[in-house]
């Protein structure tokens, strides 16, 4: 594939293009330097992206572009380098990876690693995710700071690289059971790296995703502070930043989610490889990410809503909520409701049924409160109604108990039960919206 494509042999292209950056000298203003860097980016674009059979840029050039995205303080350069990197990845998939895993770096590279070298280390990656969770705070300060935006774009690019590497390898695994290839994926290398704690990484992804999702919900357009006495150019940059942030925060939140989903996919592939005996002791054991997330969710109720709000994979969302609720549903109630001995205690229909009984409902809300129960049911319902369009052959959900009109009816009776169980609790707005939808769907189906 891309890595086998020919690299420029003559090196003339590299030398000429890199020379654009080398005109740096001390007396030039930062504007001159920024100007040269922009010319460099434009030269890479016209040199490598225009003609169909162009050769792949050299690692040195990739590093220089990545470095610009990583450290620059000009919005123009940040946006241009980010877009260029994405386009290069599209054009030459997997031609270059910004990640370094310490083994291939020479000692001199290690020395000035981090700030200077145009590559990224697992520790840097984890730190970046931590930094992202601070974006909502930073975005509200009055100081003009491009770092949050830069970090978000940097992260999106890195996730893009990880995805481009992981997806084909995981596909090859499902098709040809090639675990060795998947083991060497960037994602797996990151997760098994001893430089970071895997669990903390997953937890940090989770909290970052929730922080960003919450920011997107709370953010208002007219909260921008009015700064006086700043130059026109800073003022423009400030406006540009304020206009760009909401969209970038949203896409970054989606990128964090994408990373988590890939980890979950890798978990299930690894589980399969474990069962088949393809893994070795060197592969180690990891707690599946969904377990870590579910633990965190039961530990910290504050992130429940933002998490499920942000999670847009209906199948996963439904599975997670059902798993979450199952822990609090009295066991007997499920068993008696088994219709044909199948595992229907793990379906949404089964869960809803256990809310049709007053005693059960009371015992559940004693454990998790009526609000949480409402939110979870409503979210599960939303995921459920979104399923058919994405998974039209959802065999598990296809039983009569899980037919759409039944689910709608059961939703309404579950909420009626919740209301009866505790007369003082109000039905949450989100729950009301779910009921409204259920009622409209029922009336359309009949």
């Amino acid at each position, binding site marked *: 594939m891309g890595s086998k494509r020919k690299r420029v042999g003559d090196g003339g292209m590299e030398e000429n293009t890199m020379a654009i950056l080398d005109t740096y000298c001390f007396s030039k*203003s930062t504007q001159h330097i920024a100007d040269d860097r922009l010319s460099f980016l434009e030269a890479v674009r016209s040199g490598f992206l225009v003609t169909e059979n162009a050769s792949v840029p050299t690692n040195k050039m990739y590093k220089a572009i990545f470095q610009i995205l990583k*450290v620059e303080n000009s919005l123009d350069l940040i946006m241009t380098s980010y877009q260029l990197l994405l386009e290069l990845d599209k054009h030459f998939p997997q031609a270059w990876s910004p990640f370094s895993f310490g083994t291939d770096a020479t000692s001199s590279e290690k020395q000035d690693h981090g700030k200077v070298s145009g590559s990224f280390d697992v520790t840097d990656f984890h730190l970046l995710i931590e930094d992202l969770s601070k974006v909502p705070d930073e975005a509200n300060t009055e100081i003009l700071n491009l770092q949050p935006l830069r970090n978000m774009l940097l992260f999106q690019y890195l996730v893009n690289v990880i995805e481009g590497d992981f997806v084909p390898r995981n596909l090859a695994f499902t098709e040809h059971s090639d675990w060795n290839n998947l083991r060497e994926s960037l994602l797996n290398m990151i997760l098994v790296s001893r430089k970071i704690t895997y669990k903390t990484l997953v937890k940090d992804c989770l909290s970052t995703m929730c922080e960003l999702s919450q920011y997107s919900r709370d953010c208002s*357009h007219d909260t921008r502070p009015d700064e006086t006495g700043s130059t026109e150019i*800073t003022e423009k940059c400030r406006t*540009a930043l304020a206009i760009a942030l909401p969209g970038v925060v949203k896409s970054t939140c989606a990128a964090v989610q994408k990373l988590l989903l890939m980890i979950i996919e890798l978990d299930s592939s690894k589980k399969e490889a474990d069962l088949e005996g393809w893994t070795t002791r060197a592969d180690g054991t990891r707690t599946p990410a969904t377990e870590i997330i579910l633990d965190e969710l039961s530990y910290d109720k504050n992130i429940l809503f933002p998490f499920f709000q942000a999670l847009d994979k209906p199948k996963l969302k439904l599975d997670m909520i059902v798993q979450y609720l199952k822990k609090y549903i009295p066991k007997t109630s499920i068993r008696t409701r088994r219709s044909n001995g199948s595992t229907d205690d793990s379906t949404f229909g089964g869960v809803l049924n256990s809310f049709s009984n007053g005693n059960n409902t009371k015992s559940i809300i004693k454990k998790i409160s009526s609000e949480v129960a409402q939110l979870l049911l409503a979210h599960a319902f*939303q995921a459920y109604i979104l399923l058919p369009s994405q998974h039209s052959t959802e065999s598990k959900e296809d039983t009569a108990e899980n037919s759409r009109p039944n689910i709608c009816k059961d939703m309404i009776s579950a909420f009626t039960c919740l209301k009866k169980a505790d007369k003082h609790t109000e039905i949450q707005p989100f729950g*009301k919206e779910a009921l409204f939808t259920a009622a409209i769907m029922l009336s359309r189906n009949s």
Partner: protein
Amino acid sequence: MEMEDDPFDFESDALLATSPVVAPKRRKKVLGLDDLLADHYKEKSRAIERESRLAKTKSTYNSDDEEDGRVAKLSKYVDECHEKITQLGDEDDVSHWGLNVFGKQQSPPSFVFSELSSCSLFRSFVNHEVNSLVELSTESGESFFEGLLANGWLLKLVSECGEVEKSIAKWTFHLMIYSSKEVLTSAAIDFWCAILLLKNEDESPSVRIDWIPSYSELKCFLETYGFLLHSPTNDSKDSSDTEMVPGEPECTEPPQNIRAWIKYVAAFSQSRNIHCTFTASEAEELVVVIVCLLLDRQLLGLSIDLNECMLALVNFFTDDEWSSSCVNVAKSVASRVPKDMNSVRAVECIPAVHGPSKLLRSAIAFHILLGFFDKVEDEEVVIRKLTSINLKDKTCDLFKVYIYLVLTENWFLYNPLLEDNQLLNEMWGLFLRNCSCQINITDSRSYAPKVRSKASYLLQGTADRSF
């Protein structure tokens, strides 16, 4: 964009420490600066160089205490020097692109969601038995529907019903274009982008949308944002005057919701086969609008959205339409863009990722280039004019030559038809050789180094390509 109070410190310390490209062997280039300075600054600039070395040493090894006194003295000296250099440098400061394409915002039209109670989604539910739990009423209606929109229920509901009622369409559109709550704007964007593209297998819309804003309404929204759609800039403005329209600087800010407008236009142009959208000439105008938006630095952070929108618009055209529409767009852009760095930006902002977009980039470059010369329409004549420029003439405006270089480069590079035109290519090569050879390395005119190095770089590239 400069963050440091003292630019000198910034350059010597921060940048030296972070820049990957400072190769020591290139240091002799520092001397090139002396040529830019008048002779009597020679002495002083050497002092700066010493200081710069010192700063570099400092950043690596920490300074020795005993040197502090000398350093302080030197740094005062250097500061004075630097000030003078900056003053001197102002004369040939690099020119930048950037227009204010937004004027005063109008207050958004008032909108009352009064039609809500007449919409069938609302009416069919109010008397439903489940309403005892939901307690929906005319008073609580709007905020309840806001929840339905923000939390993604509304999309499912309308696709279930197969219809977006007029009241719902107008209300959600208003929120998208004017709401100051990000959650509503963003949910309304998602809602509209989704419903526009909902379709059956035979490309017919699977959801009937009872109201879609017309093209003139769409332009109207842009005008309430303060967008200066018809501002003529084809008078040959000087490069120092980068403002499209002189106006109060405090009211030239685009609103946050501009992103919603851009996203909508992108989605709408993608739905050409599903809905009745724009005419080709309307779409041409929109491409020009997007180019204008890309010329405003305040929208720099939206480049990704703007690029997507531009590509969606370019893809809107059929191949037949595009051959003439592309030229119309290029002419229109050329007539609006001031003949300074903005004309370079107008070309370089075009995301040339496939055939039609490459053609657009080439066409815009060509038509802007034409605009620099009186009554010239022909490719050969333009390039002949370029080769006849006497670069050694002291009155020759090298800034313009630099712009010619970039424009011609884009015109040639992105137009596959020019590849085989030997005559044009030879003349282009001649122009490049002129720029690269006729300008002396010690030429102190502004833009002399830029023209020379750009031309040499391009010359190298064309040589690579032809052999």
